[in-house]
C-alpha cells in the first residue's frame, strides 16, 4: 500500500527585499494513514513552514522552489489556487496554535464549523447544523446543541481548540496538520486535547503531521519523529528509539534540555548559542557552530542523511559516518556538560 503523504526533496525559498533565502532544504518524509509524525525543532527551524507548504498556504513571498508533495499519489506542488482550495479542509486540514485568535469573533462557533461543510459538501443549513452538533459531540464538548449558538469569546481556550478540531475534521480529511495546537493551552487541557486528537485519528484513520517543540507532547502522541534544524532534517526515527538512543548531538541537546522535575538541584541544561537565521550561510554542517562534538570535517562538508539500521530512520551527522565506517564509538554523552562548564 502506498503512503498517504510523500514529500520528496522539498525546498522552500523566501524572497526578501535583500535576497532570496532558503527556509527549508531538501526535506523528504512520508506518512502512512493512521500514523502520527511529529516535526520537532526550535523556532526558525522551518517546521511550521514545512507544514504550511503541505496546505499550499505559504506566505506571499515564499515558494516551493524544488521537490514534490504527493497526497495519495496526487502531486500538490504546482496546483493552482482553485485546485488547492478544493483540497484544503476537504482532504487536508489544519489546526492552529492560537485557539484565541483562530476563530472569527463575529460569528457563532456553529456557523464557523459549518463553513467547510458548506464550501466542500454544499450542505444545506439544516444538514450542516446537524453535522456540526455531531462534530462538537465527537470532540467532547458538552451541550453541543447550545454551544453552536455561542460566540468564540464565550468559550475557554480548551473549548475553542476543540471547536478548531471539529472544524478541521468536518469533511473527514485524510491528513491533519497540527501546528503546535497545544502550546497555548494549560497542561491539563493539553492532555485532553492530545487524547481527543489521538482518538479521532483512530476513528477517521487519518495521518497526522504534528508540529511542536515540546518533547513531552512528542512522547505522548508521536509514532515517528522528524527533528529539524535551520531548514534541514537532521534526524528521523520512531519515537521509542529516538528517545532512548538519540544519534544527533542536537537531538541529544533537545532531550537534555527537558527539565527533570524530580531533581531539584539540577541546573537547566541548554544548547549554547542560538538558531542561525535563514540568511546565514554556514559552510558544512549547519549545526557545527553550536555542536559540542564538532570535528574538522563538520566545518567543511555538509553531512548527508545517513540511514541507520532500519527503514525510515536516518541521521545527518558525520559522527554517524565515523561510527559506521570505522566502528569507533565516541563518547557522546556529557558533551553538553563540557561546553557548559567551559
Amino acid at each position, binding site marked *: 500500500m502506498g503512503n498517504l503523504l510523500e514529500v520528496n526533496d522539498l525546498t522552500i525559498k523566501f524572497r526578501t527585499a535583500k535576497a532570496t533565502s532558503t527556509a527549508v532544504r531538501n526535506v523528504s518524509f512520508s506518512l502512512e494513514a493512521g500514523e502520527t509524525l511529529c516535526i520537532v525543532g526550535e523556532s526558525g527551524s522551518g517546521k511550521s513552514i514545512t507544514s504550511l507548504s503541505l496546505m499550499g498556504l505559504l506566505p506571499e513571498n515564499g515558494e516551493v522552489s524544488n521537490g514534490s508533495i504527493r497526497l495519495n499519489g496526487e502531486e500538490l506542488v504546482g496546483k493552482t489556487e482553485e485546485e488547492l482550495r478544493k483540497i*484544503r479542509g476537504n482532504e487536508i486540514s489544519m489546526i492552529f496554535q492560537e485557539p484565541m485568535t483562530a476563530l472569527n*469573533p*463575529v*460569528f457563532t462557533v456553529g456557523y464557523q464549523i459549518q*463553513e467547510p461543510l458548506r*464550501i466542500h459538501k454544499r450542505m444545506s443549513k439544516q444538514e450542516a447544523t446537524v453535522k456540526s452538533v455531531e462534530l462538537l459531540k465527537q470532540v467532547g464538548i458538552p451541550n453541543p446543541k447550545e454551544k453552536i449558538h455561542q460566540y468564540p469569546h*464565550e468559550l*475557554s481556550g480548551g473549548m475553542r481548540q476543540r471547536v478548531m478540531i471539529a472544524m*478541521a475534521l468536518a469533511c473527514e480529511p485524510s491528513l491533519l496538520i497540527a501546528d503546535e495546537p497545544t502550546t497555548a493551552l494549560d497542561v*491539563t487541557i493539553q492532555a485532553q486535547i492530545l487524547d481527543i486528537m489521538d482518538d479521532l485519528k483512530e476513528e477517521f484513520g487519518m495521518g497526522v503531521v504534528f508540529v511542536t517543540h515540546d518533547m513531552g507532547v512528542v512522547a505522548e502522541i508521536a509514532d515517528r519523529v522528524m527533528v529539524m534544524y535551520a531548514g534541514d532534517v537532521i534526524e528521523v526515527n520512531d519515537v521509542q528509539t529516538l528517545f532512548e538512543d538519540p544519534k544527533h548531538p542536537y537531538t541529544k541537546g533537545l532531550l537534555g534540555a527537558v527539565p527533570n522535575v524530580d531533581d531539584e538541584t539540577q541546573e537547566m541544561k541548554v544548547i549554547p548559542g542560538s538558531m542561525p537565521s535563514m540568511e546565514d550561510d554556514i559552510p558544512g554542517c549547519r549545526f557545527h557552530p553550536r555542536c559540542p562534538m564538532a570535528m574538522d570535517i563538520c566545518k567543511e562538508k555538509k553531512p548527508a542523511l545517513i540511514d541507520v539500521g532500519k527503514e525510515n530512520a536516518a541521521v545527518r551527522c558525520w559522527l554517524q559516518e565515523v561510527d559506521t565506517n570505522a566502528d569507533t564509538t565516541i563518547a557522546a554523552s556529557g558533551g553538553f556538560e563540557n561546553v557548559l562548564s567551559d
Partner: protein
Amino acid sequence: MSTDLAIETNSSNSEKKKDGFIVETVKKLVQNKLAVIGLVIIFIQVVLAISAPFIVSYGPYEQDPTATYLGVGSEGHFLGTDNYGRDMWSRIVYGSRISLIVGVSTVAIGLLGGITLGLLAGYFKKLDAIIMRIVDLLFAFPGILLAMLIIAMLGTSLVNVVIAISIWSIPGCARIVRGSVLSVKKQEYVMALRSVGAGNTRILLKHILPNCTAPIIVFATTRMATAILSTASLSYLGLGAQPPTPEWGAMIAAGQNFMWDAPHMAVIPGVAIMLTVFAFNVVGDGLRDALDPNMNV
C-alpha cells in the same frame, strides 16, 4: 473527564456577559449624555421630515403677500415668515427632508465606493498601490474645492451636489476600510479559513467585512454631519439647491439680505444646520467610544 468539562464550561458561562454585541453597544452609548441628546435631536428631525405634510399649516412654497417679514412668535406662523410671506416653520421642516435625504444618499454612495476600494486595496497587495495612489490624489484637493470642481463640470443642482459630496466621501472611507482590512487579514482566523478551503470572495465579504463594521459605522455617522454641512455650504454659495427650494443653506443665502430687518430668516436655518451637525457629530463620537473595545466606561 466529563466532570472537569462541566466545571470548566460553567465557570466560563458565569463570567461572560449575556448581552449580545448590539445590546452592549447601545447600553454604552446611552451612558453618554451628549450622545443621547444627539440621538434625540436626530430622532425628532427624522419624525419631522417623515410627517412634514401633516404638521405644517402652509406649504413651503405658499406665498402670502399680506404677511411678509413676520417675526418669530407671530400668530399662525410661530417661526415667522420670509420676504415672500412663506411660512418659516414649513420651510425648515421640508428643508430637513432635503438635508436627511442628501446626507443619507451621499453617505450610502460614499460608503459603497469607499468600502469596495478599501476592501480591494487592503486585501490584494497588487491593487493596493494603484488604488491608494488614486485615493491620495483625491485627498490632495480640499474637499469643498473638489465638490465645487465637480459641480462646475456637471452644473448646479441638488443631484450634482449629492454626486460631488459622495465622490469626496470615498477616499476617507477607503482609507479607513483599508486600514481595518490590513489588521483583520493578519488574524489567524483568516489563515484558518483559507485552511478549510474558503476562497477570497468568501473570506473578504463574509468574514473580513463584518469585522470592519465598527469604524465604518462611526465614519458614516460623522460623515452625515459633514455631508449635511457641505450641502448647506454649497447651496449657500449658489452651487446646490436653487431658490425657491427650501434648502437650509439656500435659505440663509436668501435671508442674509434682510439680516437687519428680519434676522430670523437667516438665523433659524442656521440654527437648524448647527443642531443637526452637532447631533450627528456627538452620536458619532459616542459610537466611537461605545464600539472601541479598549475603552471601558
